[in-house]
């Protein structure tokens, strides 16, 4: 039982990282109907920006919560800028073309970030400095949680609540929801659709950057291709929860994280990459629009 609870704790921690990445996918999809394949690579950039920020601040020499927050904030800001640039120069020009052209552009951006990363940072893994000294805390019943895991959980929860606040209770959030319903109608109501789309990309990229830094805290080995698999699985998590649906992305991420950790713990680590997709296929066969998604009737 204690082993199961331990796996559950690890799974939820890992799942909240997926959830953070999945939120970016689901928001962009909700607004543009675009699978932003480059999102996983923005997560990778987040980890690297965090690394550079940590070096610049000298956070490895005097680790502490203040440094950690600064590293996180700088990485998030950096990725926000990257997200804006990607949207402005790659996606905006193809927005009026077919969705497939946009998708191939997204794939191109993804390849560009990966290979640009290899060129600039080198293909060999880099080690993320220990900004927080790791410590294990016993929760009782043989279950332990590391302070890094607590940070991951707290920061992701905080960011998710922040996002929820933005989407539900601010003017810009209202505009985002309007744009996701209908671009034309939103434009007619005086919403600057372009600005809302840019804002959505920035928001998603900021969350992905946070996920990148949080993961790097726990697994300090970072490399330019680290974003591919988590990106793919986070997208699957978004679909699992019902793509375009913000709570769905969080739920999907958590389900995915727990399922993955359980498979590694009880079955075999080699099946780790398959479980996400098996889960996806099973759920989509039962609920084609995802767990929380609403089935849209096709209007003729």
């Amino acid at each position, binding site marked *: 039982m204690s082993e199961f609870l331990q796996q559950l704790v690890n799974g939820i921690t890992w799942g909240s990282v997926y959830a953070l990445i999945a939120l970016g996918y689901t928001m962009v999809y909700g607004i543009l*109907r675009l699978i932003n394949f480059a999102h996983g690579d923005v997560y990778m950039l987040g980890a690297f920006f965090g690394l550079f920020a940590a070096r610049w601040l000298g956070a490895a020499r005097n680790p502490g919560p203040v440094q950690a927050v600064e590293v996180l904030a700088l990485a998030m800001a950096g990725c926000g800028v990257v997200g804006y640039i990607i949207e402005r120069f790659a996606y905006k020009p193809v927005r009026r073309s077919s969705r*497939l052209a946009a998708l*191939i552009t997204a*794939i*191109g951006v993804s390849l*560009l970030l990966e290979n640009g990363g290899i060129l600039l940072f080198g293909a060999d893994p880099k080690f993320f400095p220990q900004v927080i000294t790791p410590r294990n805390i016993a929760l009782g019943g043989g279950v332990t949680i590391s302070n890094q895991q607590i940070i991951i959980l707290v920061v992701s929860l905080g960011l998710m609540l922040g996002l929820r606040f933005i989407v539900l209770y601010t003017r810009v959030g209202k505009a985002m929801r309007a744009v996701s319903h209908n671009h034309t109608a939103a434009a007619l109501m005086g919403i600057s659709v372009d600005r809302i789309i840019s804002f959505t990309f920035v928001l998603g990229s900021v969350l992905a950057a946070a996920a990148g830094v949080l993961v790097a805290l726990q697994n300090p080995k970072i490399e330019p291709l680290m974003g591919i698999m988590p990106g793919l699985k986070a997208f699957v998590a978004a679909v699992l929860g019902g793509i375009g649906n913000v709570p769905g992305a969080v739920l999907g991420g958590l389900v995915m994280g727990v399922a993955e950790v359980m498979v590694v713990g009880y079955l*075999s680590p*080699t099946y780790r990459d398959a479980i996400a*997709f098996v889960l996806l296929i099973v759920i989509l066969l039962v609920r*084609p629009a995802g767990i929380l998604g609403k089935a849209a009737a096709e209007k003729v």
Partner: protein
Amino acid sequence: MKQVAGLVAVLGLLVVADLALRRVLSPYQLQVVVLCGINVVLAVSLNLINGFTGQFSIGHAGFMALGAYGSAMFSLNLGARWVTKLQGLGLPEPIAAAPALLMALLVGGLLAALAGYLVGLPSLRLRGDYLAIVTLGFGEIIRVLILNIDVIGGARGLPGIPGWANVFWVGAGVAAVVALSRNLAHSSHGRALFAIRDDEVAAEALGVDTTSYKVLAFVIGAFFAGVAGGLFAHFLSYLNPNSFTFIKSIEVIAMVVLGGMGSISGSVLAAIVLTLLPELLRPVKEYRMVIYSLMLIVLMITRPQGLLGTRELSLAWLRRRRPAREAA
């Protein structure tokens, strides 16, 4: 009669091409030519699913992997014995290998087609991006399964596959998939596929059995992806699950979209361009993939409908263009 003559002509041409290219080209160039051919088969077969029927599949590498491993296992366990028996009768190796390779490609193709049927079935319920993500998942599941099956080498890969495939066989594969696509496009079945792509609801209202046509597109597309996989296996003589990642599927999609969705000649052209491009960029090796990805983005921004759009490159089209230009 005319068709038989055409078939003989194509096969004859391929034999000549095979013998000539083997003399003229270096082994590296020959390999690039063969890889171009294999990618053409992949792109044209994916075009049947994505371009003709408008179903978005991003798991083509999975079908290819099934075909590759299926045909390789056939050749290793059965085909090799056939060939030694035929060689015992005094036949030279290229001819003795022909029935075994043909059978191996069929086995690989059918295995992939069966998988295509199974993947096509959920398209009963799923549309658009949901179907896309299921095909993606399918491709990844296949790869992870291969990684975990020890009989076929697992993560070590599968070595020692007889290297029977050559320019002739790859050319025959290309000819088969192009001819089939062309005939399909001009048949009533092809029209049904186009109708589904353009408007599924309208197609259904007009009495097109959308479900079975969608599954049909998946089955044919997967079959040829399997054949391409078989050719790949029998050309390189070695298989590794890492050749069939999600990236490979993406490459094939890029070919289809870049060529112009639904255009057969576009897929052929784009497959050749996108295979040659990284090879031509080898001199600037560290910038190679960066340039490749930048070009992909720029091409999509400047020509979002693909190189050829939905048009087909043909002699008649070229002839029609010329007077138009002179008039202008």
